[in-house]
């Protein structure tokens, strides 16, 4: 079909289009951020009298991040279907470019959410981190893993009828390997003991696998 530089250019245009329209409406970012902050407040409010183990802290952090991803990441494709712009996008760009553009947008969106949630979480829960670098790496890789698994699921869900509830149902079993590894390596970073290299490697392998298989399968979702 098209050469790879063409793909890359088209993908960046799709990303730029999404960022622009997001910047104008601020729908996804404001909704997701507010949701994440609400969830964070609920967690912090209800467990503030207790000091939690690192395992539990990490689990709470990823529960908040996972569900905020579930509220926001499906928008990328649902918006195209609801705004009836999907057809135009189908004509304008190769499927792979659309997928990569949407993936990049979801990564950016989820990274922005993580960048706000993670510091707030540490402040509200009054946590001092023994291994801040590892925590940042786990958050970054976990964010990538969440975005890579939910982009294709978002594409599937945007073509189905009951979109809201279905997204989390479909995304959870597929996201679980990435999510579990992210929880593990964050727990290591928060406790300062143990090794997280295996989990980080699993996260990297998982994201690569999801992106590669999504690229192969996306055409069937997009053009049917």
């Amino acid at each position, binding site marked *: 079909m098209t050469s790879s530089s063409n793909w890359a250019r088209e993908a960046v245009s799709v990303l730029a289009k999404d960022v622009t329209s997001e910047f104008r409406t601020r729908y996804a970012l404001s909704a997701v951020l507010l949701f994440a902050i609400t969830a964070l407040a609920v967690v912090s409010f209800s467990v503030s009298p207790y000091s939690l183990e690192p395992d539990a802290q990490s689990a709470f952090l990823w529960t908040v991040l996972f569900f905020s991803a579930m509220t926001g990441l499906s928008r990328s494709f649902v918006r195209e279907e609801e705004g009836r712009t999907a057809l135009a996008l189908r004509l304008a760009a190769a499927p792979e470019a659309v997928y990569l553009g949407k993936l990049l947008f979801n990564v950016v969106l989820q990274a922005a959410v993580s960048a706000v949630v993670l510091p707030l979480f540490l402040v509200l829960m009054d946590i001092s981190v023994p291994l801040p670098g590892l925590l940042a790496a786990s958050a970054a890789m976990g964010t990538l893993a969440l975005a890579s698994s939910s982009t*294709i699921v978002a594409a*599937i869900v945007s073509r189905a*009828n009951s979109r809201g509830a*279905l997204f989390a149902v479909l995304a*959870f079993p*597929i996201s679980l390997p990435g999510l579990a590894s992210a929880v593990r390596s964050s727990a290591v970073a928060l406790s300062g003991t143990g090794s997280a290299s295996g989990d980080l490697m*699993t996260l990297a392998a998982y994201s690569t696998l*999801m992106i590669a298989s999504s690229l192969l399968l996306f055409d*069937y979702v997009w053009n*049917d």
Partner: protein
Amino acid sequence: MQRLIASAGAKLLLGAWMVIVIVGAFFYAPAAVTLGEMSRIIYFHIPSAWIAVLAFLMCTVYSVGYLRKRRVDLDAGASFAAELGLLFCLIATVSGSIFAKSAWGSYWNWDPRETSIFVLLLIYGAYFALRSSIDDPSRRSSLSAVYGILAFVTVPLLVFVVPRIPAVQSLHPDGPIIQAGGGLDMDSKMFTVFMASLAGFTGVYAWAFNLRMRAWRVLNRAQEAEAVDRED
């Protein structure tokens, strides 16, 4: 006609085989040393879990076939494989849970194998939730095929991830299949019944799947004939 006789014969053979397996499981095979009479669950629980995984594999194979060839019968095959997989997955989960209560004291404790079968249940559930939420038949087929393949791709990773989930040590006896030893040392009688049961369950799966496909073909043909009638 000959095919009909052959299939009736195969069905009878399968029925007799399963009867022998059930009788053998309770009377021929001895009880295991540590677990006692409860150990007889292995002749039913493990084959069910095996069928749940096999059906998942078949669902993926049919899904890939559908995406390549776009034949409706392949999509029907994928959904029937998933249906049977869900059924056997439920049987494996419930029977395992009852065994866990009497052997280890609680119905559920997120043991690694309980986690993986739970994920498999979730995948099957999500697969049918997706199917039922799409009206257009060809879109339903291809979207659920894509989802089935994606879910299958992630499963091998779970094999690496799940044992690393903290705080739970597996209570499962380290498999009669994987290694003989520990509490569930199989002697030759147990092994015979166990393998016969695996074969029998696989046969039951194949029979039920075949039945479902034949019923679907008849229905499909009737619907097509009706559509042609209406056009005339």
